């Protein structure tokens, strides 16, 4: 397993300008033969009273189907939570015997009680802590509000879980809070998604299993060297989703910072936007503004080995020139992701405006979102927006708010607002 890193930027700056922006495209390349990473998958399932009936039955079936997909090298466990958590299946190798045991244990699971999500996370953390050497992926399912505890309790527990395991979250139905579930997913390097009907849980979990078993390396970090006197303004992941990593920086040395991105699967690709402020230069001066590299842990003979990948193509430069035709150009990768950032913001603010009854503000903001989605050929987002607004003219961003929008459509749009379209390779500045 290795990585390819490539930087895209306009290196030319007008004299006096000190901010250097670049998009880094990082692609994991195929794993080397043999030496697979140990994987532990934990299911964290809401079994509060509201799950009773079709939801809990579908959730049980989905967990059992997902376990069937695992091979014997993988370890799994199942935690159920209402106001408190219990271990339904403790960590076990996915052998035929253990799968049969899981069937029995899940059969007796009943839905009752309140909802305290932190208890489920804490139980999973305890089990995951026993396998520090594995890639650890959790699947979290809920259907309701986190009504049995204060939000601060979840925040505290998330801080403990961060770095122990990663977690993708699903909410079934529409009676749950996007913000609550998203907080858990974002805190644990995962994604929050909506499953409209219980029948969809099986498919969602199967996809999650397929994704988890592709994970090949862990502790992947974007490492940035910057020269003396320079300052990192921000580091954001911009694809597949927008995540500001700036606050998660770890200082390795005065000139080297690292940004944690979790476990990656083979062939995974992510883009990052790096912004650096350098010391001012004169026309004709050139300097290296940043030297990005990828540091990761790779399975090797039963343990993990740290690797670093550098690339001459990943270097970010600052080059001052009097020539305005050079310095005024905006690299099209940066333009694209700046647009996707504006799109996410317009959606989030537009939905907020609509929720508080500001129809004028919502129309303007969601109209802007429709226009950016259309111009950047983000078809998925255009479709999601069309379920919430009537599009009159996508080029101008002329829309009308829909009456009687399905709640699921609004929640889905809110959940996916920061999912970006990947920049097209090559091409001219757009």
């Amino acid at each position, binding site marked *: 397993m290795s990585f390819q890193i490539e930087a895209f930027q306009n290196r*030319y700056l007008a004299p006096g300008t000190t901010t250097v922006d670049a998009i880094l495209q990082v692609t994991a390349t195929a794993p080397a033969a043999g030496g697979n990473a140990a994987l532990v998958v934990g299911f964290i399932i809401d079994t509060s009273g509201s799950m009773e009936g079709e939801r809990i039955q579908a959730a049980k079936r989905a967990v059992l189907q997902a376990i069937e997909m695992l091979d014997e090298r993988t370890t799994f466990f199942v935690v159920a939570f209402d106001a408190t958590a219990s271990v339904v299946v403790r960590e076990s190798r996915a052998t035929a015997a253990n799968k049969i045991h899981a069937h029995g244990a899940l059969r007796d699971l009943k839905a009752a009680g309140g909802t305290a999500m932190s208890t489920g996370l804490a139980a999973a953390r305890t089990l995951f802590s026993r396998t520090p050497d594995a890639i650890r992926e959790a699947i979290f399912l809920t259907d309701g509000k986190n009504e049995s505890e204060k939000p601060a309790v979840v925040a505290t527990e998330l801080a403990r879980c961060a770095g122990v395991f990663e977690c993708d979250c699903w909410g079934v139905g529409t009676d749950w809070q996007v913000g609550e579930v998203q907080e858990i997913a974002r805190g644990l390097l995962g994604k929050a998604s909506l499953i409209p009907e219980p029948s969809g849980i099986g498919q969602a979990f199967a996809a999650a299993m397929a994704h988890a078993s592709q994970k090949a390396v862990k502790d992947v970090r974007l490492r940035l060297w910057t020269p003396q006197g320079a300052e990192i303004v921000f580091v954001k992941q911009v694809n597949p989703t927008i995540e500001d990593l700036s606050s998660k920086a770890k200082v390795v040395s005065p000139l080297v910072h690292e940004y944690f991105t979790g476990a990656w699967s083979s062939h995974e690709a992510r883009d990052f936007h790096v912004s650096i402020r350098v010391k001012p230069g004169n026309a004709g*001066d050139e*300097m290296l503004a940043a030297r990005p590299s990828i540091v990761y842990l790779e399975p090797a003979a039963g343990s993990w080995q740290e690797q670093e990948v550098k*690339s*001459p193509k990943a*270097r970010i430069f600052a080059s001052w020139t009097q020539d305005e035709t*050079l310095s005024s150009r905006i690299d*099209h990768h940066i333009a694209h992701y700046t647009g996707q950032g504006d799109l996410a913001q317009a959606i989030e603010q537009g939905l907020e405006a609509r929720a508080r009854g500001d129809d004028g503000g919502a129309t303007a903001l969601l109209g802007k979102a429709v226009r950016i989605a259309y111009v950047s050929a983000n078809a998925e987002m255009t479709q999601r927006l069309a379920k919430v607004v009537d599009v009159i003219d996508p080029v101008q961003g002329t829309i009308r708010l829909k009456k009687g929008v399905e709640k699921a459509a609004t929640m889905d749009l809110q959940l996916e607002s920061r999912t970006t379209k990947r920049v097209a390779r090559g091409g001219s500045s757009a």
Partner: protein
Amino acid sequence: MLCSNGHDSSELDYCSICGSAMSPRASAASAAGAPAAGPAGTCPSCGEPRTDASARFCEVCRFDFRNNRPGPAPMGRSSEAPAAPSPPPAPSPVAPPVTNASAAPTDVRPSAWELVVAIDPALDVEPDPSAPCPAKAPKRVVAVDRDLLVGREDDRRDIHPDLALADPGTSRRHAKIVRSADGTLALQDLASTNGTKLNGVDVAAGSRRPIRDGDQITLGRWTRIIVRGRP
């Protein structure tokens, strides 16, 4: 290796402390007082080191040195891809030397040359586990006392280059370092399979380019050759 600001850099291309280019020529020029347009020996527009004082255009941004203004639009190379191959510039065969002779860098012609041959794992962007980069191999210093064939040793075909490289990305007859009668050096790519770069710029297959103190030649999967003029 010391950079132009006197930092001890652990990197060969740009200083690991201040980010300035690790080119002794650029440092000598800036110490001597750079002209307003930019340090002598580098392009005033993009800062690329000038490999050929008689070339009219910058090899990277096509800045016109003779008229001191931006040249025609760059071709086949954009700022998004700093390491992308660039077509060689079109130096006019009758291009006179820089008109203002006093402003031109005054080269002290080194009387002897040597090549520092280093293995740079950072160049190995697509590592092959079956042939890992020997990152710990020591640097070699090779004197250029005659023309040198650079390439991969092949006993079976009885090819023994003067500068033999154990780099699977190099061709058996990859490049040649040529000494001219006037003591200057040139690099000639011998139509190698994977190409040769001079200061990060592709040398067109088969073409010959002058090389000078501080120039860096990269080839194969991990080989970096630094040119040094030994006075």
